């Protein structure tokens, strides 16, 4: 993985020194909140409902064990002993004191981590496929390009005061696990005639106006990528709307100007910017960065311990069946550690749990960890012979829940338990749904299912692309939850369809149960997933089950 050089270290130290001085000036009253707010946001510091919140970037979701241990240290030293992993591969600390934040940032810098541009109207943390570098279906590892974009966008003088925030995601595999179609720019690595290039999607995004990204360019070769991205962001920065915050994202520009007109503008800008990249320093840098991401030396040893445990231990087998994914190397697996134990808060890990995962990564998994946008932790490179030991250690730490991709593996934003923007709670809804289906023992019967919950229309919980999406709203002073069905965040991205009127806080779990029991009664056979049934039948049968009174009235 990427190791900071002297420039990176100096840059970060200077940036942290500046922010420390800004915090001091805020505390002594020489900066007003109005003056301080844009400065703190540029450094990931929010003020939430009950306290400050520090959002730390985990660039492209990659961590080593030392970094994970430092995240644990921050949780214990300056927070309440836990951290919350988010849908954009960040970690959030919910209870820091303002005066402690500079020390937290210095502690992060010790391990090459930061909170820069995790907020504000800038280019945000670049996210990537959490299986990057390990997945069996990968064309190329997307992380070198993600790191290149991180370096290029960090403190980029042209892109510090944009109309709104700007989000990049990148996948190196045709199976899109990075939700690239729901980002301002989504990149997909493709191969054409032996050459690696990039398909550029533009104008995706969820929130108040959900849109699926459109293809701006089918194939951009590596040497043109950075100037092309720069041209795209620059065009939007110049002509994107600034009159209305809700219409300021690039998706609105695509919608209002049209894809072809935008493409023409971008290509014109590209021809102006491309000469600035003469000499190919960006390509040389990309190659240098790629060297940091060279795959580990994979061993070729027998997998007998795994095979024996799989055959004899049903608990291990159940976990292996749900939480392992195919690895590119023979004898290896990708392990997803679930942070979704039924009844717990999705995406939360205690400091002790973080240390357990760090230890396992160091001992068994080439010292690498990943954070997924689905709020789980991944050990990307594990030889199968280590899996029984890993499973045992995870079990002892309350981390061996076998539910990846199932009904209780729910994405939930912090919602009104923490977030100042939220209009309703999401965490307790997720907790109750997961607990209910665990009690009903229906989780494995239902099979693959993605439930995603947001506590407001900003859609941090990605509800539009959930197979079942839940959106919490404030309806006349009462929490109310709208349901969408049939959303999909993969390469076939689709925005879900709303079922109809929302449900009260104490009705929403029952409504989800109604939907899933309807699915079980309608599927052709157990191999037909919820999403497939939804696509085959549309939402009509689910609506009929959810709103029986409407049917009665119509009759």
């Amino acid at each position: 993985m990427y190791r900071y050089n002297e420039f990176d270290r100096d840059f970060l130290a200077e940036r942290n020194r500046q922010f420390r001085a800004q915090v001091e000036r805020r505390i002594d009253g020489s900066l007003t909140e109005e003056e301080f707010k844009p400065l703190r946001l540029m450094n990931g510091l929010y003020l939430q409902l009950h306290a400050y919140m520090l959002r730390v970037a985990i660039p492209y979701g990659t961590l080593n064990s030392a970094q994970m241990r430092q995240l644990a240290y921050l949780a214990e030293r300056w927070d309440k002993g836990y951290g919350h992993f988010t849908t954009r591969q960040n970690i959030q600390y919910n209870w820091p004191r303002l005066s402690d934040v500079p020390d937290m940032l210095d502690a992060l810098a010790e391990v090459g981590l930061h909170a820069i541009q995790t907020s504000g109207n800038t280019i945000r943390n670049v996210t990537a496929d959490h299986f990057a570098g390990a997945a069996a279906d990968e064309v190329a590892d997307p992380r070198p390009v993600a790191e290149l974009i991180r370096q290029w966008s960090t403190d980029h003088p042209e892109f510090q005061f944009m109309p709104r925030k700007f989000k990049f995601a990148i996948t190196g595999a045709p199976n899109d696990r990075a939700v690239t179609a729901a980002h301002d720019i989504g990149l997909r690595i493709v191969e054409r005639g032996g050459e690696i290039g990039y398909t550029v999607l533009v104008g995706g995004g969820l929130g108040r106006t959900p849109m699926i990204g459109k293809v701006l360019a089918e194939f951009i070769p590596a040497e043109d990528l950075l100037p092309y991205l720069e041209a795209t962001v620059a065009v939007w920065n110049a002509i994107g709307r600034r009159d209305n915050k809700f219409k300021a994202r690039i998706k609105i520009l695509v919608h209002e100007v049209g894809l072809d007109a935008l493409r023409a503008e971008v290509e014109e800008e590209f021809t102006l910017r491309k000469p600035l990249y003469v000499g190919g320093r960006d390509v040389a840098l990309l190659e240098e960065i790629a060297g940091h991401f060279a795959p580990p030396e994979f061993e070729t040893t027998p997998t007998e311990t795994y095979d024996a445990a799989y055959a004899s231990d049903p608990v291990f087998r159940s976990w292996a069946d749900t939480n392992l994914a195919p690895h590119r190397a023979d004898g290896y697996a990708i392990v997803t550690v679930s942070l979704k134990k039924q009844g717990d808060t999705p995406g939360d890990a205690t400091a002790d749990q973080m240390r357990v995962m760090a230890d396992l990564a160091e001992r068994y998994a080439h010292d690498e960890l990943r954070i997924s946008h689905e709020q789980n932790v991944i050990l990307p490179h594990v030889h199968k012979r280590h899996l029984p030991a890993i499973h045992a250690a995870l079990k002892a730490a309350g981390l061996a829940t076998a539910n990846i991709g199932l009904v209780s593996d729910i994405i939930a934003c912090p919602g009104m338990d923490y977030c100042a923007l939220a209009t309703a709670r999401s965490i307790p809804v997720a907790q109750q749904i997961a607990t209910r289906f665990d009690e009903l023992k229906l989780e494995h019967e239902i099979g693959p299912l993605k439930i995603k919950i947001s506590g407001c229309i900003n859609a941090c919980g990605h509800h539009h692309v959930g197979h079942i999406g839940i959106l919490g709203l404030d309806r006349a002073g009462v929490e109310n939850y709208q349901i969408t069905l049939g959303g999909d965040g993969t390469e076939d991205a689709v925005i879900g369809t709303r079922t109809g009127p929302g449900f009260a806080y104490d009705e929403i779990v029952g409504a989800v149960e109604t939907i899933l029991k309807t699915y079980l009664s309608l599927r052709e056979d157990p191999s037909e997933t919820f999403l497939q049934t939804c696509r085959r039948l549309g939402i009509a049968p689910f609506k009929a089950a959810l709103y029986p009174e409407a049917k009665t009235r119509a009759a």
Partner: protein
Amino acid sequence: MPRDFTPKVVTANHLLDGDVIYQTADDRWSRHHAEAELITDEAHATIRLLDAERQVDTVVGAYLADARPGTHGPEPVHFREVFRTRGPSNYAHGKQVEL
């Protein structure tokens, strides 16, 4: 026709720890909603909010929140304000254990 003024309290977050605070009638900031000044006059509410906003080295994001009289003092009306009086629902953190 303008809507009738409904009673309010002035609330904000504390600059140093971000905790929810309420302005009292004797110009203190309390962590307890019940100690807030319940404001029933619109002009007075505007003045009290300005008083709060001037204290830039103590409070952040002051605003007027609906409230009503209760047995021990003012009570919040909206569920968001109820959550602010106690903390998150997923852990025993915040005011629900600290006050």
